[in-house]
C-alpha cells in the first residue's frame, strides 16, 4: 500500500479497496483466519444456547490512554456477551472510514483490534469497510456484532434479582469516561489516568459457578447509577448504593472540578454483579483473587419497599441518584 491516507478509491470495490482489506485488515487479523473472498462464511458454535449482540463505536478521541476505538470495539461487544453468561466466539466488523484518514493510524487501530480479539478469544469472521467523504465521519466509526454460546451454570438476568441481594463491583468506577475526557484536553485538564477498557471474561466466567449469581452488567454509558435504574425499572425493587463505591482520586477530582457525578461515568472493563446475600463473600473472594478483581468490593444492596436508587454518603447521609438525563461526556464509546 503506497497511500498514506484513505481516499474514496479505498471504498470503491476495486483494486485499492481489495488492497486495503488484504494488507491492513486481513493481515492484522491473521489469527482470525478471515476469508476475505467469501460473501458469507459458516461458523462453528458447538453446543449450547447461542447469544448475539451488536454495538457501534464513535469514541472521540479515537485513541486514549489504555486503548483506542479498535480495542474498544472488541471489548464493548464481547463484554456484553460475557455479562450475559456467554463465552464470546465470533465477531463481525464494520468500519466506516473518513476520506483523508491517516493509513498509519488506521493500521494502529486495526492492530489493537486484532490483539484485543486474540486476548478475548474471539475470531473476526466477517467484515466490511466503507469510505465516507471528508467531513462526514469522525475519522473512523466501527460496529461489531458478537456471537457467543451460553456457558453452563447460573443464567444471570434481571428477573432473578431478589430483595436483600448484594451488589459487588470488580474495581473502581469512572476510569474510562474520565480518561477519555482527559484525552480530549477540552477543559485544560491533563492527567495520567488510564482507561479500564479490557475483557471481563476472566471475571464473569467463574461467577457462573455460583447458583446465587442473579445478574451481571458492565457499567458502560450511564455508569453504575444507570444499572441501579435498570434494576429498579425491571424489578420494582429499590437499589441502595453504599458509601463503599471505589472511585480513584483523579476521577474524584475531575468530577469535583467539573461538577460531574462519578456514579454516572462509564467503565469499559468492570463488572457489577448482583448476588444472593449468602454468596456475596464468596463472589468477592473469587474476584479478589484475580488480577482484574483485586479492588473488588461490595457496593450496595437490593431493598424492597424503597422504590428509588439511593446513595449512602460517607458521612452517613443519603441522596437519590436519579436517572441520567444529559450525558456529561458524549461519545466515550
Amino acid at each position, binding site marked *: 500500500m503506497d497511500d498514506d491516507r484513505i481516499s474514496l478509491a479505498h471504498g470503491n470495490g476495486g483494486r485499492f479497496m481489495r488492497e486495503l482489506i488484504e494488507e491492513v485488515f486481513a493481515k492484522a487479523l491473521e489469527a482470525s483466519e478471515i476469508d476475505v473472498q467469501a460473501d458469507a462464511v459458516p461458523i462453528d458454535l458447538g453446543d449450547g444456547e447461542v447469544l448475539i449482540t451488536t454495538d457501534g463505536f464513535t469514541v472521540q478521541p479515537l485513541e486514549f490512554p489504555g486503548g483506542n476505538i479498535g480495542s474498544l470495539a472488541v471489548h464493548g461487544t464481547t463484554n456484553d456477551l460475557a455479562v450475559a453468561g456467554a463465552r464470546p466466539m465470533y465477531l463481525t466488523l464494520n468500519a466506516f472510514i473518513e476520506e483523508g484518514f491517516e493509513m498509519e493510524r488506521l493500521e494502529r487501530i486495526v492492530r489493537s483490534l486484532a490483539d484485543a480479539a486474540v486476548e478475548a478469544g474471539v475470531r473476526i469472521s466477517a467484515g466490511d469497510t466503507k469510505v465516507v467523504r471528508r467531513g462526514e465521519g469522525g475519522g473512523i466509526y466501527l460496529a461489531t456484532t458478537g456471537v457467543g454460546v451460553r456457558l453452563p451454570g447460573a443464567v444471570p438476568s434481571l428477573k432473578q434479582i431478589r430483595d436483600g441481594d448484594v451488589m459487588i463491583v470488580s474495581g473502581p468506577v469512572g476510569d474510562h469516561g474520565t480518561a477519555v475526557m482527559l484525552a480530549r484536553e477540552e477543559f485544560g485538564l491533563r492527567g495520567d489516568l488510564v482507561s479500564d477498557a479490557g475483557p471481563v471474561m476472566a471475571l464473569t466466567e467463574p461467577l457462573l459457578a455460583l447458583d446465587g449469581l442473579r445478574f451481571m452488567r458492565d457499567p458502560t454509558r450511564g455508569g453504575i447509577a444507570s444499572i441501579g435504574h435498570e434494576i429498579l425499572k425491571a424489578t420494582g425493587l429499590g437499589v441502595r448504593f453504599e458509601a463503599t463505591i471505589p472511585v480513584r482520586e483523579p476521577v474524584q477530582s475531575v468530577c469535583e472540578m467539573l461538577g460531574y*457525578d462519578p456514579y454516572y461515568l462509564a467503565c469499559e472493563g468492570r463488572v457489577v454483579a448482583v448476588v444472593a446475600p449468602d454468596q456475596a463473600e464468596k463472589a468477592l473472594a473469587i474476584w479478589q483473587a484475580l488480577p482484574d478483581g483485586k479492588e473488588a468490593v461490595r457496593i450496595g444492596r437490593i431493598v424492597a419497599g424503597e422504590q428509588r436508587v439511593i*446513595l449512602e*454518603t*460517607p*458521612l452517613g*447521609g*443519603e*441522596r*437519590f441518584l436519579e436517572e441520567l438525563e*444529559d450525558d456529561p461526556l458524549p461519545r466515550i464509546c
Partner: protein
Amino acid sequence: MARTATEWLEALRELGVERPVRIMNVCGGHERSISIAGLRSVVPANIELVPGPGCPVCICPEEDVYEAMQLALHEDITLVAFGDMLRVPVNVPKKDPRSLEQAKAAGGDIRPIASPTEAVRIARENPERKVVFFAAGFETTTAPVAAMLAEGAPENLLVLLSGRLTWPAVAMLLDSDKPGFDALIAPGHVATVMGPEEWGFVVDKHDIPAAVSGFTPESLVAGMYSVMQQLRDGRRDLDNCYPQVVRPGGNAEARRQLSDVMEVVDANWRGIGVIPASGFALRDAYAAHDARQHFQSYADESRKRVGEMPPGCDCAKVVLGKIYPNECRLYGAACTPRKPIGPCMVSDEGACRIWWSSGTRENVWEGRKRDALG
C-alpha cells in the same frame, strides 16, 4: 490534629444547641458539596442549611445577557463567554433568540471559554477581528479578568464586564427586616482573593456568627460547628475554617490588580435590584478595552419584563435564601436543566441545578397537590 467530617459531625451533635438555626452559604461550590455529601440528612434536625447568593450567573443582569446577545448578532465580532452563561434565558418575544446559545444558532459567532487565557488566545489568533469577552462573575472570576487587562491584553480584545462582589448582597439581606438566617458560612475562594476580613461586618455589625469554609465536607462541617459553638457561647468571631488557602488580607497582588483596573460601583442584580457598591466597572485608563464604550448600547427599555426573571420564576427568592429551590412552582415541572426557565437551573452554581442534579426531583407544590388529592 485535623478532624474528619464524621468527627466534626459528632462534635456538632454534641454541642447541645437545640433551637432552630438557619445557616446560609454564599457559594455554589458550598451548596454542591452539601448536596452531594447529603449533609442535610445528617446534621442535627434543628439546623437548616440555606443556599444563598452564591451564583454569579443567576444574578447577572438580564440586560447584560441581552446586550451580549445583540453585540454577537449585530456587530462583526466574536463573543466569548463562560460556558454556563450560554443557556441563560432573557425575556424576548417567542420568535427571537432567547439565550446566547440560540443567538449562536441564529448566526452569532459565540464561543464558550473556561478562562480569560482562552479569550486572549482567541483574540491573538484573530488579530483582524474584535473579540468581546462577556465577563460575568464574582470576585474569583473578575480578579483574573483584571489581571488579564493589567498584564496587557491584545488590542482587539474588549470586555463586557458584569462583575459583582458577593458580600454586599449578604449586607443587603442583613440590613433588611428579615435576613432569613442566623449564621453564615462565608465563601472560601472569595476570601482567598479578597481576604476573610471582608466578612467581618457580619459578626461586628450584625452580631451574626460566621466562618469561612472550603469545599470539602470537613471544612464545611467545621464551619457549621464553629458558628453553632459561637451561638452557644454567645461569642462572635469570624472563624477561618479554610486556613490552608485563606490568608489574612487575601491575595494582595490580585486585589491590587482589581483596584488598578476596576472601580467599585452600584450594580444591578437580576430580579433583586441595585445593590450599592456591589459591582465592578472598568476604570477610564482601560476604556480602550471596554465594550460598553466601544459599541452603541442595544438596551431596549420597551422590552417586556426587561431586567426581570422570566414569568413565574422564583430564582431571585432562591438566590436570597427566601425559599428552597423545590419551593418554586416551576421547579422540575416547567423548569429542568434540559429546558431551563430561570438562571438558577442553568448554572452549575445555581441552587436549582445543584438540587436537581443531586437527586431532588419533587416539587413541593406537586407534593402538596398530591397530598390534597390523595
